[in-house]
């Protein structure tokens, strides 16, 4: 495809915008991912020629779905001739021919939602749900997903095939879950989105240049889910991601070193994202149906809005709420930091000792680095150094390693200067 041709460029853009929608409806009509993909690609190649001659139709999505449907009927007829044993094929052809030619907007939207729930079905391994969603819902290519996750395209292709086979063999239905299952199934979708976001957020702190920005994909995907399903936790997650994203530029310095929240240059924060995130938090809180993402976003929104002093009391109360809704030792650790900020480092250290005594998080570097930080603040530098060394032995990410090494050098120097 020659790059310079404006018609082809326009089509490439339409492909990006429309392919996921067209595919979702074709999957519903055909009941098969492979048949649907084949039909969608053929519809686009017909469009390449037809739209050049007659211009782009008023409703390209409907045009592509309709063309894909005809192409699928042709393909099925051909398959029927080759494999006579499949009685289902004739039924499918008949169904397709009888199917209403015009798919309405609501159906197209519902199909997208069905596609999201199918790709994020808990019966599929989470490591497969993620690339499947990026491919079938976000419309990324296998190569793009592979490069974002630093695996070969062949490995990624295998994972995606594994997912499609699971859907096909176990007959995972292409439906919007029933009301009773909906909260759990929305949770599954949200955790896929958040994992995609975090992968993108972590990757950018390394020296990686990646064609696909996973964080932006996750935000885009969450916006899509919110437009289709206005649930408070979807709002909460979108808010949380926007608030994190607002600080992207500020959280590492020019050398790629980590800059802690308190020391970040606030001029680098994105006020547009903060404003949108804060508004979404308020909207989510107003629903009275408050879940883990909304609470985390509410905490992030306090940080994002505090210019001179932070309301630590309010943050502690939100962590208390989070401990009720979604308890975990990591939440307990974050709460300990907030308590240290309100009541002094000793109070924080006592909570951390409690977490440590329960044997939780002893392999989590942040437990030890936080402990080191608080020990340094009460002036116990030898103990702080020990804690930072422990953290350093556990951490894997290079920027975090560098940060801990800086801390160690600094505290060792202080001790030496005193002697």
């Amino acid at each position, binding site marked *: 495809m020659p790059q310079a041709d404006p018609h082809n460029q326009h089509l490439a853009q339409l492909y990006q915008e429309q392919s996921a929608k067209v595919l979702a409806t074709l999957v519903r009509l055909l009941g098969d991912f492979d048949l649907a993909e084949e039909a969608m690609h053929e519809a686009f190649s017909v469009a390449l020629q037809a739209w050049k001659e007659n211009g782009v139709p008023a409703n390209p999505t409907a045009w592509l779905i309709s063309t894909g449907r005809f192409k699928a009927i042709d393909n099925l007829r051909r398959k029927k001739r080759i494999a006579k044993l499949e009685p289902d094929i004739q039924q499918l052809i008949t169904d397709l021919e009888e199917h209403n030619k015009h798919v309405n907007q609501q159906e197209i939207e519902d199909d997208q939602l069905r596609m999201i729930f199918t790709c994020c*079905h808990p*019966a599929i391994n989470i490591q497969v749900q993620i690339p499947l969603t990026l491919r079938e819902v976000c419309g990324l290519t296998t190569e793009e997903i592979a490069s974002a996750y630093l695996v070969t395209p062949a490995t990624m292709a295998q994972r995606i095939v594994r997912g499609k086979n699971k859907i096909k*063999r*176990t*007959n*995972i*239905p292409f*439906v919007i*879950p029933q009301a009773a*299952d909906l909260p759990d199934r929305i949770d599954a979708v949200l955790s896929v989105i958040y994992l995609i976001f975090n992968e993108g957020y972590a990757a950018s702190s390394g020296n990686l240049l990646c064609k696909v920005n996973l964080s932006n994909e996750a935000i885009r995907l969450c916006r899509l889910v919110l437009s289709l399903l206005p649930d408070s936790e979807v709002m909460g997650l979108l808010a949380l991601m926007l608030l994190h994203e607002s600080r992207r530029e500020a959280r590492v310095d020019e050398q790629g070193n980590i800059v802690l929240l308190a020391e970040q240059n606030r001029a680098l924060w994105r006020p547009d994202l903060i404003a949108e995130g804060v508004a979404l938090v308020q909207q989510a809180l107003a629903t009275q149906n408050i879940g883990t993402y909304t609470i985390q976003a509410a905490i992030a929104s306090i940080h994002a809005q505090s210019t001179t002093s932070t309301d630590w009391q309010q943050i502690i109360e939100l962590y208390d709420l989070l401990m009720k809704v979604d308890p975990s030792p990591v939440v307990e650790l974050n709460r300990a930091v907030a308590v240290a900020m309100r009541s002094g480092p000793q109070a924080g250290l006592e909570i951390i000792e409690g977490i440590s005594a329960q044997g939780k998080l002893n392999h989590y570097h942040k437990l030890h680095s936080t402990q080191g930080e608080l020990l340094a603040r009460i002036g116990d530098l030898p103990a702080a150094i020990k804690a930072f060394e422990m953290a350093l032995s556990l951490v894997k990410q290079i920027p975090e390693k560098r940060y801990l090494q800086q801390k160690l050098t600094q505290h060792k120097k202080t001790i030496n200067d005193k002697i």
Partner: protein
Amino acid sequence: MQYILLIYSDENCWTEEESEACYKKSRAISEALTAQGKLISSAPLHPITSATSLRVRNGKQQITDGPFAETTEQLGGYYIVDVDNLDQALEIAASLPPAKKGTVEVRPIMQLNELN
């Protein structure tokens, strides 16, 4: 589409009353599924101590008492159901009493004509 629901749980963690209640509930579920035309077959299995394992190696039968390895959960029963999709099979699995104590493994059954 047919699915087999394989029920695994720790045999030792059922009291006599619990077992009795489980059989009663399971029988009711089987009857309801039969009435809906969804049940192919279902049965509890005798305890793992009654199991015999057989392997044929180099043309020789090796017959041993019990299962090969000590596992925490044992196969205790099964259901074969005929439903439209995985979600419906999972819904039945979730209603089974042992799901609360052990694990229900849901597997689609391959039809012999799928093998060509």
